[in-house]
């Protein structure tokens, strides 16, 4: 029975696609997707997540949303602080590098979010549909807080334009556009578009994780130079933040699935919005550190080990 449940957790299409691509790349096989496909798939995923969330938002009453929204705000402030403190004290990284890393752990990974949703779907655990809205909120706040920590080290102009970059940038803008389209048009009138945005979703996710596997493998190669501290913290921080996210979700009154999603959001690290913002605002931070931590360590950890833990935790406390 444990074996079955392990298989349920690990033998899903997205996860196997990720691991196969990761190993293939380490063995120097060329499974990278065509260059033009990566932005297309990520655009599709963001819009589709948004549209799905928007449909659910249209069915929610504002009253239901306050609790989870406040919970997300709190997590958006606390998780980067935890990451910053850990990276500064335990990791002994320079303040600029610690802030850069904090921006990544304070923000979220839309793909990790998507994988937890798919996993919950597969295991028939329900969750609140409006979580995609929280994704958008959490994606921004964590970066703002972290950049604030390092505002002295940042360029004067860089700080402002980095914020603009995140808020107006593609990943937030597409997600929010999807939310609006979903909420305004509504499930019924959106039905003709379902074969694209719902039907293809799991397949596109699997495809996207092939590309992520390749990129993660390339980051893994850099781990030797970035050191073992970064690996340990890249596992410890998501665990701490994940527990925090689960507790916050419980307090906010979420369902079992909702708690699992909240935990995953808190645990996940950004590798799209945060790197771009950090590169502009904190050019002196070392990109090898934060990209390797986020993409080479935390992302694979959450996908394979983290998400099953967060779901089990959610089931235990709800």
């Amino acid at each position, binding site marked *: 029975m444990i074996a079955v449940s392990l298989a349920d957790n690990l033998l899903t299409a997205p996860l196997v696609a990720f691991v196969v691509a990761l190993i293939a790349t380490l063995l120097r096989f060329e499974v990278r997707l065509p260059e033009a496909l990566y932005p297309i798939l990520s655009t599709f995923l963001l819009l589709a997540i948004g549209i799905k969330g928007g449909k659910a938002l249209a069915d929610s009453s504002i009253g239901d949303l306050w609790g989870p929204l406040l919970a997300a705000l709190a997590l958006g402030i606390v998780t980067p602080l935890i990451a910053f403190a850990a990276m500064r004290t335990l990791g002994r990284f320079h303040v600029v590098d610690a802030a850069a890393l904090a921006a990544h752990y304070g923000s979220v990974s839309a793909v990790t979010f998507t994988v937890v949703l798919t996993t919950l779907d597969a295991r028939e655990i329900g969750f609140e549909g409006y979580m995609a809205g929280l994704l958008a909120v959490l994606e921004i706040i964590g970066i703002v807080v972290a950049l604030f920590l390092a505002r002295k080290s940042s360029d004067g102009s860089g700080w402002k334009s980095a914020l603009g970059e995140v808020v107006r940038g593609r990943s937030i803008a597409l997600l929010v556009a999807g939310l609006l389209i979903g909420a305004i048009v509504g499930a019924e009138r959106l039905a003709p578009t379902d074969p694209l945005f719902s039907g293809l979703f799991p397949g596109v996710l699997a495809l996207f994780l092939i590309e992520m596997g390749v990129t993660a493998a*390339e980051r893994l190669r*850099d781990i030797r130079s970035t050191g073992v501290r970064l690996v340990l913290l890249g596992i410890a921080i998501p665990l701490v933040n994940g527990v925090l996210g689960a507790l916050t979700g419980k307090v906010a009154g979420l369902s079992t699935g909702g708690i699992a999603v909240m935990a995953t959001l808190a645990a996940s690290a950004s590798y799209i919005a945060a790197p771009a913002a950090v*590169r502009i605002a904190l050019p002196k931070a070392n990109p090898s550190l934060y990209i390797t931590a986020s993409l080479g360590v935390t992302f694979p950890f959450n996908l394979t080990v983290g998400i099953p833990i967060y779901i089990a935790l959610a089931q235990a406390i709800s």
Partner: protein
Amino acid sequence: MNTVNRQLVTVIAESVIEQKLVDDVKNCGAKGYSVGHVRGEGQTGGRALDITGSSIRLETVVTEEVAERILRVLAEKYFDRYAVVAWVTPVVVARPNRF
């Protein structure tokens, strides 16, 4: 053919700073520019930056004065912070007022 001498400034830079760079080039007095995409390797080993997009290659044909100004701005604001490389070539153009 009535021709004059100008300088072609070519800049390779990571793509996140494209907008900043274009603004600075225009502020230095460039009347036009062109941007394409490249990938590559250099000293800072830009591989980790790939996730934020491939590099850009900006070209602008300008007067010697403007070229010097651009190089100075690059040195002040970019060289020690970003993965940026630049070079200048003498070129001949046909319509002096356009550059």
